[in-house]
């Protein structure tokens, strides 16, 4: 099955259905687009905070220190210690961890155990801090800690199981 067909088909189906329901497509589509700029503006300050923080975190060498400290912990959870930078980066930045993943694949090979574990880890976790900043951007008051901690823990445990699975499957 070719997944690149999904998007054009999705648009064709929806717009065809909308036409059948006598929706004025141009008016309707542009009305939706109106909401885009205010949405980006309302999210921007939080995005900026997170991205500045993640830049400081990696460039100061603090990330490297954390990485070294985290290695034994990762080993205990059966995650290869070479993946420590990825584990740390993923919650902050999608583009940063994509770059790390391609570096790891280039360094260790896409079919190596480390490469496979890196892919599973990347695919099964999400940018938790980034999402928390964006989703709670328009909510007054502070971001609740519980969901953030729960997500981080769930992603970490699943990564540990995923790396074990990599050895079996």
């Amino acid at each position, binding site marked *: 099955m070719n997944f690149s067909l999904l998007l054009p088909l*999705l*648009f064709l189906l*929806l717009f065809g259905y*909308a036409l059948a*329901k006598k929706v004025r497509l141009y008016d*309707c*589509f542009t*009305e*939706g*687009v*109106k*909401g*885009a*700029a205010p*949405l980006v503006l309302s999210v921007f300050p939080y*995005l*900026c905070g997170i991205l*500045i*923080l993640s*830049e*400081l*975190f990696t*460039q*100061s*060498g603090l990330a490297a220190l954390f990485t070294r400290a985290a290695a034994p912990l990762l080993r205990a959870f059966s995650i290869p210690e070479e993946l420590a930078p990825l584990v740390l980066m993923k919650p902050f930045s999608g583009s940063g961890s*994509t770059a790390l993943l391609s570096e790891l*694949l280039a360094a260790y*090979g*896409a079919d190596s155990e480390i490469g*496979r574990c890196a*892919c*599973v880890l*990347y*695919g099964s*976790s*999400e940018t*938790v*801090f980034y*999402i*928390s900043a*964006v*989703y*709670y951007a*328009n*909510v007054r008051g*502070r971001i*609740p*800690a519980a*969901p*953030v901690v729960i*997500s981080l*823990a*769930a*992603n970490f*445990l*699943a*990564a540990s*199981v*995923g790396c074990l699975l990599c050895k079996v*499957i």
Partner: protein
Amino acid sequence: MNVIFSVLFFGASVLFLARNADAYLPALLTGAQKAASVSLSLLASYCIWLGFFRVMEQSGLSEKLARTAEPLCRRLFRTDDREAVKLAAGNLSANLLGLPGAPTPLGIRATERFCAAGNGYGAAMLFVLNATSLQLLPSTVLALRAAAGSSSPADILPATLLSTLLSTLLGMIGVRLFCKRR
């Protein structure tokens, strides 16, 4: 978030002071610059998807989707708010399909609505579902693996799928245990 921000910001700044203070301002600026360029690409994808969702809304399709998903969403998010269910159901289906950038605008609005109605539990559940990755097909991973010369890029799919299901399940259990219900 305030605690994490303060601790990391302080730690990193002290390290810069001790090692190379010259690189401090460039690092800050790189971060802000990334925010600016990410915002631009977000703006582009929000334009497409908000237009798409508006058409979906007007044609009555999101109403249908919400009606199908309502029993599930009512239990999942503990809400009777039809509008919020509509947004959350759209967010979840966009996540499952892996439409890049599409879940976010819906997720932001759903979170707003949940919180405005005092339903912190619903907002937390939606957040955790999003933050533990629901995507069925990790297209970025497959593309990167193929680019790195893997003999069969798709052979990590079973492990990835199982572990992402596990993370979502663990997250849902966590929310049920630790987040206050109304």
